[in-house]
């Protein structure tokens, strides 16, 4: 059991993190104090063209030296600093959260890695799999993840979440059941501009993990949600599928329903299921994914976890509980629960 929140303002009007903190804390019954986290998009406008790499360091000597070396090898560190924190009695600071604003160097992108994104993905996989004492937990542009082991309000206060202003917010209140409660295991999970908050347990994890590992992703976070970020990156970025198609691949219609569809639609769904069978996610889940274009919420094919949607003008809210949405926005209109597997997509208005 976990509690999740997704928020987007489609006009890119930014909101600070204070109300998200309150709404997430409201769902403390869905958590266990073992992990909480926030992702916010639009928070680093001054470094918008840099990758914001958020790293947990065990210390600032050996692991940081290795990460610095790797970053120098692949590009330029435009700016770096410790992520500002305020000590909280409820949080034991076992890692030092650090951030780099990083620009990959163009003349190094050759051979196996081709684009800026590929370079950054390679760095993330390399550090997380091989550098002891360092975990890159956020690697998108103009966005960042803030997470730790603790209750939502403590984690928010620790990171001074009210100091950040974003047009997309994701938040997660964790009750870990299938993996240890460590900082890297808290949600959101992120790779490049993809961030995932997830309530549930992915029973197809082994299949999904084997699938993404074929494409160079390395699962190192010891928990199932990580693979969702990689699936979105693989299908959404590398295979260039639309968000709707990605959801169709991850939570496809049943064969009985496909058999009843008009020929063209049935063929499309059949092709998706045959091609992306190993990407199909099984088990109970409700998920919100943050992307560079907006947010996507969806549940498993038989909806074994709750997901509620609310709208108010340009604002779209997705959460495990209606109460959390009403706390965020008492004026919210059009509250409803989507059907199983149905994608809820909030995009920026151009």
């Amino acid at each position, binding site marked *: 059991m976990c509690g999740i929140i997704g928020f987007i303002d489609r006009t890119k009007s930014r909101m600070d993190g204070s109300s998200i903190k309150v709404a997430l804390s409201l769902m403390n019954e869905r958590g266990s104090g073992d992990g909480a986290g926030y992702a916010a998009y639009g928070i680093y406008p001054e470094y918008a063209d840099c990758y914001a790499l958020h790293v947990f360091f065990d210390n600032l000597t050996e692991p940081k030296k290795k990460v610095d070396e790797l970053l120098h090898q692949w590009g330029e560190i435009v700016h770096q600093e410790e992520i500002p924190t305020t000590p909280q009695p409820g949080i034991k600071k076992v890692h030092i959260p650090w951030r780099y604003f990083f620009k990959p160097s163009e003349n190094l992108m050759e051979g196996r890695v081709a684009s800026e994104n590929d370079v950054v993905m390679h760095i993330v996989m390399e550090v997380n799999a091989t550098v002891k004492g360092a975990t890159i937990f956020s690697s998108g542009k103009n966005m960042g993840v803030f997470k730790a082991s603790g209750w939502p309000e403590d984690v928010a206060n620790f990171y001074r979440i009210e100091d950040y202003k974003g047009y997309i917010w994701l938040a997660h209140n964790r009750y870990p059941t299938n993996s240890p409660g460590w900082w890297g295991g808290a949600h959101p999970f992120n790779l490049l501009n993809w961030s995932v908050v997830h309530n549930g347990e992915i029973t197809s994890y082994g299949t999904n993990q084997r699938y993404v590992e*074929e494409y160079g992703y390395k699962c190192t976070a010891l928990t199932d949600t990580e693979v969702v970020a990689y699936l979105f990156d693989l299908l959404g970025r590398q295979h260039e599928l639309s968000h709707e198609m990605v959801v169709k691949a991850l939570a496809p219609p049943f064969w009985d329903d496909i058999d009843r569809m008009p020929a063209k639609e049935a063929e499309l769904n059949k092709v998706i299921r045959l091609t992306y069978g190993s990407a199909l996610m099984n088990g109970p889940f409700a998920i919100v994914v943050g992307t560079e274009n907006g947010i996507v919420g969806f549940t498993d094919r038989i909806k*074994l976890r709750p997901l509620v949607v609310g709208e108010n003008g340009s604002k779209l809210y997705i959460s495990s509980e209606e109460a959390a949405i009403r706390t965020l926005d008492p004026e919210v209109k059009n509250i409803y629960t989507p059907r199983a597997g149905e994608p809820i997509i909030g995009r920026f208005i151009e």
Partner: protein
Amino acid sequence: MTLGSVPPKFKVSIDRDQCMDCGRCIENCSYGVYRREGDKILIESRKCTACLRCVAMCPRDAIDITEKPIDYRPHPVWTREAREDIINQARSGKIILSGMGNAKDLPIIYDRLLLDACQVTNPSIDPLREPMELRTYIGKKPSKIKFRKTESGDVELETKLAPNLKLDTPIMIGHMSFGAISLNSQLSMAKAVAETGTFMGTGEGGLHKKLYPYQDHMIVQVASGRFGVNIDYLERGAAIEIKIGQGAKPGIGGHLPGEKVNEEVSKTRMIPFGSDAISPAPHHDIYSIEDLVQLIRSLKEATEWKKPIFVKIAAVHNVASIAAGIARSSADAVVIDGFRGGTGAAPKVFRDNVGIPIEVAIASVDQKLREQGVRNEISIIASGGIRNSADLAKSIALGADSIYIGTAALVALGCRVCGNCYRNLCPWGIATQRPDLVSRLDPEVGAMQVSNLIHGWTLELSELMGAAGINSIESLRGNRDRLRGYMLDEGMLKILDVLPAGA
């Protein structure tokens, strides 16, 4: 004859108080154990194979068969088997023949793999109330989907699917030829696969015209002897399988004894009546992978690229690299036959010593195909000693797309695994062409038994998946996270890529 005879394997006795002297045992035993002399039924135990036909047919349960009534002096090295093989070869100077699969008492890996189930943190799914999808497609899959923009600006699917077989359940019946087994056995299985929405193989024995009504559920085989192969045969099959090797006897060919080649078999195989049908060890047009590629393309051309082509290999040490080579050809599926795979006849030394277990073969093939990024290029069909729905579920979790059963289907028809298939005397009417014996197997009844078995396993697989919180077979495939090893050593766990129980 200085060697004399070896002790009989079985001792047959009749409880004379129970016996009603009906003579069914005499009628039923094709091995000639029983005969009547005067008013007494006499027994020649030495001829008994423990096929249990007499026991099954005795109305009074009067027959008792015990194993090894006389044993040798016990010795841990010079076992009964070791001594008897030497005695037999000293007498004959020949290769020892055997039937069925590997009979060595080696640990079965399936039995040391444990499946997972949900408790509390995720709900198990009840297949009686929720959809449970076992539908499986066998064949090439795209590695990614492509769309194109039409002139009107719409987005249209560009990707076209290669031909795939659609299975309602991931259980197929492997290749057992007409000749090796009776037409009634093939008919029983053909009706069963048609009813359960799956497929069976013809083996290298051609396709008898009585099977034409089921041809949409038949996979026709092209093996090294090319028996029964012509364009009509290829066109009738739903898919075509090139047989390179077989788990029971990797590296050698096949042999159908002339006794089994009656008129129908001779016509269907296109070989002379009564002649031995000998399939050579290699295909005489395949001396390397590129030759296989040519044969696949030729078969595809001949059938207008409308049918999936399978390639069947025995699980040998280098199976993963061989499968990866096959994945790079135009083949649509690779069949891997483990060292417990059955056979009508194989040299005992091959059956018991050559090849590797199917469990590790699936694991290493799936792993290699993924490392090389060609897993979607080819489906994996696993076979060789799959005994029940748990073996099926574990095969899929290790990475197989579907399985072939062979012995299990024959047991459903009555086979008691006596291992004398090559003698043309099968009292159950399965591995024989003798009309009086074949008539013992009613294809209608046989079909019901085989389809019952497939139904039963399908239901059990659904329950196992539901318990694991999985409602689609794709999510079980390669899901080694839901397996744990028990009493397996570290090296084996590493190859299987499975955690030990408790981890």
